[in-house]
């Protein structure tokens, strides 16, 4: 897939996502210029040609919402459990079906640890997820890793319910050429 094609898909997907509540959007929104919304089989044409429908399976939104963009880890661990391996297999399949995208695998930790240890732990988790994707066939050149340590929790409470969600590796899809 070429870069412009990926960019087009991305903008279409954004248009579709924005139209998930059709009543709130009218003329002027992305896709309102009558551009064909072929990918994903949009239906339910509304005023001004705006359509609504399921996410484009080739869109980053589909990846994050339907395929699932994250795996969770036990305290201090970076090993992948069965659930994580299943999730990463699905991610790998999507990435191989959509070769125009690259991805950054983010590693995160909960707040129960020092800042710098958690940076190292996040790097370990991101690499663990990345290595599994590569083993499933995704070209390593399409993946980069980054650690956020405990700097970017997704849940903000200070109990295990939140910590469990924060000990994660998240695959963030980006359009563009392979990273070197």
């Amino acid at each position, binding site marked *: 897939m070429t870069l412009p094609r990926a960019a087009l898909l991305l903008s279409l997907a954004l248009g579709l996502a924005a139209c998930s509540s059709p009543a709130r959007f009218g003329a002027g929104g992305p896709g309102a210029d009558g551009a064909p919304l072929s990918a994903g089989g949009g239906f339910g044409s509304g005023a001004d040609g705006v359509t609504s429908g399921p996410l484009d399976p080739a869109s980053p939104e589909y990846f994050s919402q339907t395929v699932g963009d994250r795996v969770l880890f036990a305290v201090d661990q970076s090993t992948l459990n069965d659930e994580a391996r299943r999730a990463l297999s699905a991610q790998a399949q999507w990435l191989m079906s959509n070769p125009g995208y690259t991805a950054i695998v983010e590693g995160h930790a909960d707040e129960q640890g*020092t*800042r*710098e*240890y958690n940076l190292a732990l996040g790097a370990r988790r991101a*690499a*663990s997820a990345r290595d599994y994707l590569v083993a499933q066939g995704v070209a390593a050149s399409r993946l980069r890793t980054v650690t956020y340590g405990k700097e970017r*929790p997704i849940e*903000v409470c*200070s109990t295990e319910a939140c910590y469990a969600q924060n000990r994660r590796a998240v695959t963030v899809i980006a359009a563009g050429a392979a990273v070197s």
Partner: protein
Amino acid sequence: MTLLRFLIAAILATAAFAQVTAPARAQDGPLRIEITEGVIEPLPFALPTFIAETPEAQSWAQRITDVVAADLTGTGLFRRIPSDAFVTQVTQFTPSVTYANWKAINAQALITGAVSVTGGQISVKFRLFDVFSEAPLGEGLQFGGTEQSWRRLAHKVSDAVYSRITGETGYFDSRVVFVSEQGPKNARQKRLAVMDYDGANVQYLTDSGSLVLAPRFSPTGDRVLYTSYETGFPQIYELNVGSVSRTQLPVPAESMTFAPRYAPDGRTIVFSAAINGNTDIYSLVPGSAPRQLTNAPSIETAPSYSPDGSQIVFESDRSGSPQLYVMPAGGGEPRRISFGEGRYGTPVWSPRGDLIAFTKQNAGRFHIGVMRTDGSEERLLTASFLDEGPTWAPNGRVIMFTRESAGAGGQPGLFSVDVSGRNLKQVPTPNAASDPAWSPLLP
């Protein structure tokens, strides 16, 4: 009791690592300095407002006196006697005083001073008297500077007084680099900032566009090492504090780098690099390629040089949980030094060389603690939901650290505690703050 006795008492309190639960309170009876199970009775001192020797010096004299008083009382070692208790007022800066007048109010020390202002330049003179020995303690001293530097002049007076009474160097004329934080917990904005040790004169060194972490001052206080996400990935940078210009440092290929610290030579740095998920410690001498100091599949991070530059203490989970290790500065077989319960991190070698401060996590609580460099005589100084990241005052007597509160609204702030465990208090900052690193004593 004389000032000398107080000096000995204060040193004993440090050497014996006496357990202390709360700062001593002033008693109703006669003031004395005693150690009772490690509790030091603060030394009562009289500090009449410094004399204004020129008309424009009036407000400066008041402000400088206030800062000296705050410095000294802020240590928990001294207690200021209110001026309305004075038998006599000081109206002239003279070399002799009537000791009986100060004995009468049980002042152990008397500090007198004078301030003059000419052409935007401030001059501060002071004298220190040992009231019960009826003798000056050291010569009078004079400090000069611009009006902008008035707080530094006050801190210099405090450092001299502190040093003469305790026999140790002071730490008041120093700065702290830290991370100023704003915004919700899941989208925190962070900026590098510097302030005086007491929270005054905050200046920002970076904008909030990129996440920044864990700064460290150079041994000369003119540069700062830190980690920034400005490329989208954590990388180490050096920032010149005066010009606020920053340089990205040469690091191993394909690495994320963090936890940079200076060696005592101020040129060599040591840092962590994560390559393919594995974090090891590297050193970097300007003009040379990075050199790998540890080589293990475990996490090696949070390095800190001994003050003589010969050894590095760091954190590693090679045993299965994070513990502290010491290795030669050039790399080599590490020796584990932490053996207590729980997890240990962020070791920082004291500028005196005798102790290592650390973060400890045990049974759901965080502590700041100290141990000898062989790991013996571990003592925990604090306990809370989350304490981490100790930094030493330049004289090795006080530790500043980050304390963060729990929950969705949890915020970090800066706290300090005496190495004996006394005098825990928050350092005021304009916003939430974390990752303090103390400068050396300024020249």
